[in-house]
C-alpha cells in the first residue's frame, strides 16, 4: 500500500468540481480548510507506529527510506556547518535541525520543474535539489550574498528580509499562470514571517488571482526569542480560509505526513484550484543561528519534549519496525561520514570574489558611477583571484 498512488478522481458532492487527488484524498479533503481541526495530520506516531490514518492509507517504505536518507544527510550538513562556524570557517550558520521532515517531506512532493522560493533555513530543500554543499555554505562564509544559480536548481536565492520572497513567488506564479504552464510554485517561510505584511499580501494576491502556488510555513514555534503565541491569535492554517486559500495542518516532524499533505495540496493547485497553505508544526531544535542562545528564552523541558518528537528518530523507528535491515542504517552512516568530509573540504575551498565584481554586478548596463568608482578602487587595490 502506498500514499503516493496514481491520482484518481474521487466523487464529490454535487456542484463541487472534482479534482484529481491521491488515495489520501478522503481524509485530507475532509481536513482541508476545517477550522475546527486543531490536531495536525499525522501518519506516523512518535514511537514509529503508523497512526490510524497511516494504517488506512498505508506506508510507502521506499519513500520512507528516501526521506530518512535525505534527513540524515541534511542533519549532518547542519552539524558540520555549525562546527565549521565554531572553527571560524563560517561567519554564521542558521540551523535547520529538527525541521528536516518538513523540508524534505514537502520538497519531494514537487517536480524538479516547480520553482522554489526559500527563506534562508531551507538547506534540506536545497540538498534535495542537488545544490552542492559549497553553494549552500557560500553565503554563510561571507563569500557572496547567494550561493547558486536559480536557473540551474530552480531554487531562488535566499531571502533574509522576512517574507519578501512570498511576493516574488506569487508574481512568478502569475507568470506561470499567464503562460498556461502546469508548473507549481512553492515558497517557504516561518511563523515569524507570517506576521509580515508581505506574506499576507501574498496570500490575498494569490487567492484573488487563483494562482498556482503553495505557501509552506514551517511553524518552528520560535522567531528568534518570540514564541508563536506572541505572533498570532489565529493559527495560520485557519487564517488561510479567510484569504480563500486552501489550508492544511500537518505534523511537520512526520516526513510521510508532510509528503502526503504536500502531494495533495500540489495536485489541487496544479489542477487550477488556486493556492494552498500548509502549516507544518515543527520545532527548531537548535538556536536561531550560531549566534543565538536559546537557553535565554526557552526551557529544557520544552526542548526535551520536542527532542522526543525528533523526525529522524521517528522514521528510523518506523523503518526498523517494518523490518528494514541494519544495512540501510549502516550504509547511510557511511554515506553521511563521506558527505561530512566533503562538506568540510568544500567549505574550505570557497573563496570570495574581489570587490571589483560587485561593481560589475550591480547594474546590467553601463553606469558612469560604477565605471569611475571601480577605476578608483582598482587603482588602490590589486584584484584578487576569485
Amino acid at each position, binding site marked *: 500500500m502506498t500514499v503516493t498512488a496514481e491520482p484518481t478522481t474521487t466523487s464529490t458532492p454535487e456542484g463541487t468540481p472534482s479534482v484529481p487527488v491521491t488515495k489520501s484524498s478522503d481524509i485530507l479533503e475532509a481536513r482541508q480548510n476545517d477550522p475546527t481541526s486543531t490536531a495536525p495530520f499525522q501518519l506516523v506516531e512518535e514511537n514509529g507506529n503508523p497512526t490510524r490514518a497511516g494504517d488506512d492509507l498505508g506506508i510507502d517504505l521506499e519513500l520512507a527510506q528516501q526521506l530518512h536518507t535525505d534527513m540524515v544527510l541534511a542533519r549532518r550538513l547542519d552539524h558540520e556547518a555549525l562546527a565549521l562556524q565554531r572553527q571560524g570557517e563560517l561567519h554564521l550558520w542558521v540551523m535547520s535541525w529538527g525541521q528536516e521532515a518538513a523540508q524534505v517531506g514537502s520538497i519531494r512532493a514537487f517536480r524538479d520543474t516547480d520553482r522554489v*522560493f526559500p527563506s534562508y533555513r531551507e538547506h534540506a530543500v536545497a540538498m534535495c535539489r542537488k545544490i552542492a554543499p559549497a553553494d549552500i555554505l557560500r553565503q554563510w562564509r561571507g563569500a*557572496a*550574498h*547567494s550561493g547558486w*544559480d*536559480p*536557473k540551474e536548481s530552480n531554487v*531562488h*536565492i535566499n*531571502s533574509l*528580509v522576512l517574507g*519578501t520572497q*512570498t*511576493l*516574488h*513567488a*506569487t*508574481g*512568478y*506564479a*502569475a*507568470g*506561470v499562470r*499567464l503562460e498556461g504552464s502546469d508548473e507549481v510554485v512553492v515558497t517557504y517561510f516561518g511563523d515569524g514571517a507570517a506576521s509580515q*505584511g*508581505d506574506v499576507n*499580501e*501574498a496570500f*490575498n*494576491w494569490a487567492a*484573488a488571482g487563483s494562482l498556482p502556488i503553495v505557501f509552506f510555513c514551517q511553524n518552528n514555534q520560535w522567531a528568534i526569542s518570540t514564541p508563536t503565541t506572541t505572533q498570532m491569535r489565529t493559527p495560520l492554517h485557519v487564517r488561510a480560509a479567510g484569504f480563500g486559500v486552501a489550508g492544511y495542518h500537518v505534523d511537520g516532524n512526520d516526513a510521510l505526513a508532510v509528503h502526503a499533505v504536500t502531494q495533495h495540496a500540489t495536485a489541487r493547485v496544479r489542477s487550477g484550484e488556486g493556492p494552498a497553505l500548509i502549516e507544518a508544526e515543527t520545532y527548531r531544535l537548535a538556536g536561531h543561528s550560531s549566534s543565538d542562545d536559546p537557553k535565554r528564552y526557552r526551557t529544557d523541558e520544552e526542548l526535551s519534549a520536542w527532542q522526543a518528537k525528533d523526525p529522524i528518530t521517528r522514521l528510523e523507528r518506523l523503518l526498523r519496525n517494518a523490518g528494514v535491515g541494519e544495512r540501510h542504517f549502516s550504509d547511510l552512516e557511511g554515506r553521511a561520514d563521506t558527505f561530512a568530509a566533503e562538506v568540510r573540504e568544500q567549505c574550505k575551498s570557497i573563496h570570495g*570574489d574581489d570587490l571589483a*565584481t*560587485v561593481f*560589475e*554586478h*550591480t*547594474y*546590467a*548596463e553601463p*553606469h*558612469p*558611477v560604477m565605471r569611475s568608482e571601480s577605476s578608483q578602487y582598482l587603482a588602490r587595490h590589486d584584484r584578487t583571484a576569485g
Partner: protein
Amino acid sequence: MGTKYALGAAINAGLRAAMTRDEKVIVMGEDIATLGGVFRVTDGLADDFGTDRVIDTPLAESGIVGTAIGLALRGYRPVCEIQFDGFVYPAFDQIVSQLAKMRARSQGRLSLPIVIRIPVGGGIGAVEHHSESNEAYFAHTAGLRVVSCSNPDDAFHMIQQAIQSDDPVVFYEPKRRYWDKAEVSDEPSRSLHEAAVLREGTDCTLVAHGPTVTTALDAAAAAHEDGFSVGVVDLRTISPLDAPTLRKVAAQSHRVVVVHEASTFLGIGAEIAATVTEECFYELEAPVLRVGAYNLPYPPAHMEDRFLPNVDRIIEAVDASLNY
C-alpha cells in the same frame, strides 16, 4: 511626426509602442485597466492588449513591486504604476532591498527589467500624500536608475527607453504637467541618461527636472528681459547624473542654480552642487545655489504656492549668484 500630445497621452503612446514591440511587456497597478488609471495614463491599453497584460492589481504597493519582481524572474518586463508619489512607501523594502539589490545579490545572475512609474510633485491642490517629491530616496540606492521627464516628447521616448533597460528604473512623471501639450518626434533625440540643454546661458545656468523645468524656463525668460543670459538644463536623469553636461554648463556660465520641488536638505541639488564644485571649482564665480521646497512635510493645498519653488524664488537665487 509632428503630432501634438499631452504629456500623459505621450506616456500612453510610449507604453503602447513598447507593448506592441515586445509581448513580455506588461503593465500593472491600481485602477489602471478598466479605469485607465486615475490620471488616464493607461487609458485604452486593456482594450487593446487585454487584461492579461494590463493588470488591475489588489491595492497593495509592496505586492505590486514584489509580484513584479517575480514576473521579471519569469521573463516578463513589468511596468508598475504607483498611483501617487506618497503611496510608494509601503513598497520601499521591495524597491530598495529586493529590486535594487537582486542583481548584485545574485552575482549578476538575475536581472530585473522593471519600470516603476510614479506621478510626482505638487501644484494640483491635492490632499496629503499626493504631492511628494521622493526621488532622492531612490537615487541614493545603488542598483536603481531614476529618471524624470518634463515634456511630452521625452515622456514618449523615455518611457520606452526605460522599459528597454535591463535595470530597474524609477520613472517620475510630473503630474501637474500631464496636460501640457507639445510635439512628439518619431525618434528619440538622446539616450535615457543624458541631460538636455534647453537654453544656453553665459551668466548662469538653471538645472531642473520634471515639473520645475517649465518654471526654470519661465525664470530664464524673465531674466533675459532684464538683460541676463540664463541657461536651462533639463536633468532628465537623476541617477546616474549626466556629469559631463553639468561640467559643460558650469564651465560656460560659471554659475549654477539647481531647482527642484523636493526639500533642499539632502536633495538631488546637494549632489549636483557637490559634483559641480568638485569638478569645476576653478570655473565657478559663485557657490552652487539650490532652490527647493522648505524642509517640511508637504503642507495643505492652500499653502503649497508658498512652499514650492516659483519664478520669483528662482530669480532671487540667480540674483544672489550673480551678486556673490
